[in-house]
């Protein structure tokens, strides 16, 4: 019963709540006051009634004494009828006088005397009055008995019957009056509370309406809010509320404008930026959005891009740290994911990009902003540079290589000369001799062909790709080309290669160039030392390969001049060279370093000036 009522009140508007609570409180207070007043009235009136009854009783008792003694019935009757004259008749139900034998001497009934009341209320001998509530003809009556004494002895008693209903009538009258009054008060408060509730809630309803409008994006509220509130003073809470509401709205408006501005700015950056930018869903790596540059670069339309898996374009592999960061943080800093990775355009053409990612919120989703900077051109330039450097190296090596080629040619020449001489001398050439010469010529041709093939391989321009290679292979290839040359220069090349090393991700040709550069540098350093000291030094190059933890390491040590510590930090810079003008371009180590870094490798240099240098090249191993 009560719960639905409470619920229904809870669901009422604020206005009705205020209204109801005020009304209920007023009703409760009214009822309490009514009950309290009634209680006071009844008790006061009852005691007042008894007092009046006693007063009447005593005065009759005083007046009737002589008539009682003479038993003058008419006088007694007249006396008690007089006691009921006028307004008292409403109050005094009856009066009767009894003598000491309880005989009824006089009474005011106009019907037979109701016998039961004669002795119903006897006065105690030592008292002079007694009051008792009794019932007479369905009426409650207070019977007030007062003793009539002559001297100290009782000669009779006066009984005055007081209608209890007299009080009830009074109380009824008062109650009616009071209720009327309370009703008027309630009505008054009713109207006031109604009005109050309306006054409070109307601005609130207005605020609500305005809030709704604001949520719909209508910010033009200032005039509307102030309408109707001018009448209330500055201290009025509702007005203060609406003021701060207006202030708030203004702030929202400002920040909205700022946001819009910033949004536009970033949108234009996003749209007109030169780099392809994608927005990816963080979980599925689906493309949510892409900028025009992305469309242009990858050759897809926007519609084709959105919804496509980003990994369709190219590899997107995150490190463990990045995975953790991206999965836990709603937004974060830009981090580099990978560089110089190959992505495919729509037409299958490969491009090289650097990938940067940044976790953000995008349209209520956990998203990633991924920028793929197209570095294909740079990679191409790198390749050209590397090629140029390689050609330079080849140029430098051309003398040695020519010498290398001369040897088979000489051998072939010797064979052909022998045959020519034998023919001129008409000396017979034995079958065995001929076979030996032919075999030698063939092997010398094979040898020359091998050299030429290696040269061609080496000189071929290569792409920036990665494949699994074993580090020992390029070392051996390079030594095939220039090993003899080094030995011709009295340089002792010692190979300490570990068999069955794990593979690394790199490119054979490029690694050849790295080794080539290191070996030529080592040779130069050894020659330079000899030139500067003019002594016969140890001329040794040691090439080692081994594994160190999860990395594959190649060491190239020489017994050359060493590196001046003051220039140690500069040796990887492009165009830095210690050689004489015209002898080197100063690109060797710079290119070497670039290639090594492209494959995730590191170069470490241990060098003691005048004693020699060791280059440690380490690459992550491929499991």
């Amino acid at each position, binding site marked *: 019963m009560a719960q639905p009522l409470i619920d229904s009140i809870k669901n009422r508007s604020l206005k009705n709540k205020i209204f109801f609570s005020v009304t209920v409180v007023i009703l409760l207070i009214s009822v309490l006051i009514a009950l309290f007043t009634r209680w006071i009235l009844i008790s006061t009136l009852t005691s007042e009634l008894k007092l009046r009854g006693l007063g009447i009783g005593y005065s009759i008792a005083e007046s009737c004494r002589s008539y009682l003694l003479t038993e003058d019935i008419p006088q007694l009757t007249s006396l008690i009828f007089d006691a009921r004259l006028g307004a008292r008749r409403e109050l005094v139900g009856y009066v009767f006088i009894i003598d000491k034998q309880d005989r009824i001497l*006089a009474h005011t009934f106009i019907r037979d*005397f109701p016998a039961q009341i004669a002795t119903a209320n006897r006065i105690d001998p030592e008292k002079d009055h007694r009051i008792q509530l009794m019932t007479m003809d369905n009426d409650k009556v207070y019977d007030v008995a007062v003793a009539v004494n002559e001297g100290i002895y009782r000669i009779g008693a006066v009984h005055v019957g007081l209608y209890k209903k007299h009080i009830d009538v009074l109380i*009824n009258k008062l109650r009616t009056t009071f*209720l009327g009054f309370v009703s008027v008060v309630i009505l008054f408060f009713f109207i006031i509370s109604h009005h109050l509730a309306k006054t409070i809630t109307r601005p609130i309803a207005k605020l609500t309406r305005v809030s709704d409008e604001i949520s719909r994006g209508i910010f033009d509220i200032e005039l509307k809010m102030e309408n109707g509130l001018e009448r209330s003073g500055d201290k009025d809470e509702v007005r203060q509320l609406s003021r701060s509401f207006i202030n708030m709205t203004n702030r929202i408006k400002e920040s909205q404008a700022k946001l819009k501005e910033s949004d536009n700015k970033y949108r234009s950056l996003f749209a007109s930026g030169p780099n392809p930018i994608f927005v990816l869903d963080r979980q599925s790596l689906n493309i949510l959005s892409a900028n025009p540059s992305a469309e242009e670069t990858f050759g897809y339309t926007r519609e084709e891009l959105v919804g496509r898996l980003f990994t369709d374009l190219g590899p997107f592999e995150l490190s463990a740290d990045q995975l953790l960061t991206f999965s836990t943080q709603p937004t974060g800093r830009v981090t580099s994911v990978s560089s110089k990775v190959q992505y495919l355009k729509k037409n299958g053409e490969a491009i090289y990009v650097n990938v940067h990612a940044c976790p953000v919120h995008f349209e209520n989703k956990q998203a990633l902003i991924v920028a793929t900077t197209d570095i294909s051109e740079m990679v191409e330039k790198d390749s050209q540079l590397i090629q140029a450097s390689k050609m330079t190296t080849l140029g430098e090596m051309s003398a040695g290589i020519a010498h290398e080629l001369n040897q088979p040619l000489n051998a072939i020449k010797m064979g052909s000369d022998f045959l020519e001489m034998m023919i001129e001398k008409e000396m017979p050439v034995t079958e065995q001799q001929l076979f030996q010469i032919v075999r030698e010529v063939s092997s010398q041709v094979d040898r020359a062909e091998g050299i030429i093939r290696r040269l061609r391989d080496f000189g071929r321009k290569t792409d920036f790709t990665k494949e699994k290679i074993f580090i020992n292979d390029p070392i051996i290839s390079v030594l095939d080309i220039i090993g003899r040359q080094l030995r011709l220069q009295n340089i002792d090349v010692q190979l300490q290669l570990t068999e069955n090393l794990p593979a690394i991700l790199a490119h054979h040709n490029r690694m050849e160039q790295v080794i080539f550069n290191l070996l030529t540098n080592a040779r130069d350093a050894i020659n330079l030392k000899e030139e500067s000291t003019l002594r016969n030094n140890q001329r040794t190059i040691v090439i080692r390969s081994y594994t160190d933890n999860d990395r594959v390491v190649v060491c190239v040590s020489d017994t050359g001049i060493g590196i001046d510590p003051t220039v140690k930090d500069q040796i990887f810079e492009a165009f830095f060279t210690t050689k004489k003008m015209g002898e080197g371009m100063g690109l060797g180590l710079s290119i070497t370093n670039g290639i090594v870094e492209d494959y995730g490798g590191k170069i470490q240099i241990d060098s003691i000036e005048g004693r020699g240098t060791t280059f440690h090249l380490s690459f992550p191993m491929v499991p």
Partner: protein
Amino acid sequence: MKRSIIIILGVLTSMMMACTNTPEDPLSTILSPGITDDQVRVGSSLALGGHAGYLGTQTLHGALAYIQHVNDLGGIHGRRIHVKVYDDGYDPPRCVTNTQKLIIEDKVFALFCYVGTPTTVKILPLVDEARIPVVGMFTGANALREPHNRYVINVRASYYQETGAAVKHLVEELKLERIAVFYQYDAYGFDGLKGTEIALRPYGLVPVATGTYIRGTLDVAEGLRKIMAAGAEAVVMIGTYEPCAKFIRLASQKGFSPVFYNVSFVGADELARLLGDVDEKIIVTQVVPPPEVSETQQLWGAQEYIELLRRYYPADRPNFVSLEGYINAKVLVEGLKRAGRDLNRETFINSIESIHNLDLGIDNLLSFSASDHQGLERVYFTYLQDGKFVWRNH
């Protein structure tokens, strides 16, 4: 919202309604005691002896003359009227006791033929409470007329009317201005005094002196002295025949001879008898015409009265007092007649109220209404002439 307002108003209204219940009166059921198939019992308490015994006796005789006549003719609607009479000796307490006894023990249908102001006024509370009709009182007391009481049926003109007419006569025709009042020191006397004062006020006059006596005594000397000292030209006397006669005699002896004026209650015939042949100018206002005017100027009502009185009370001489009793009886009988066989106190009162311009043969039409419970209005002036009060139609 509107619904809740209606609900709350409804609750308030019902709370108000709940408070206005009034208890039912248990007495309203007692309507018709004293009525049997062949009898209507009415009760009377009046002075049958003592200093007002003449008034009571004559009133009763007049009334009974008519009632016996009616009974002899078969009663009203088959019921004979039985009058239960108690003597109160013009003593108010006894009147109250008698009335209580009439109501409780004798269970009379109505009260009838009461005599005297102090006595009758005393029983008003009983009448009110018992709702018993009281018909035809030999008194003109204002207390029986105002406030209006449904159960009190007056027949005669009031003392106010009597004194009013008398004062008008004294002031306007006899050109007297020094008017004194001699009155019985009780409700009757006060009523007469008040009536006189009210009548004098429009002339800008007040009583020049007042003298009193105690009911049942003849101590009039002091009152007379005061009135003489004031040099009154007229004395309005509100008393009974004995003290008034003594007053007039004493005044006459002392050579004080103003105009003496008495109200009807004095008992004009007895006063005349007591005074004998005096030279004083004595006026008595009457509320009934003199029963015996002259052979030529006879009223048929008075004629009928004289005949019936002669039949039932041959010893009595026709007089104003018993004629009044006779007329009271006629009103009672007329009411009972009109109420019909299904008689009760309420229908009886309604019947009385229905009487309008009824000619009783006394040159004075009887009329009642719900708001007017006094049947006759006329005041008759009588003068003492040759030991007898004669009607002078001035």
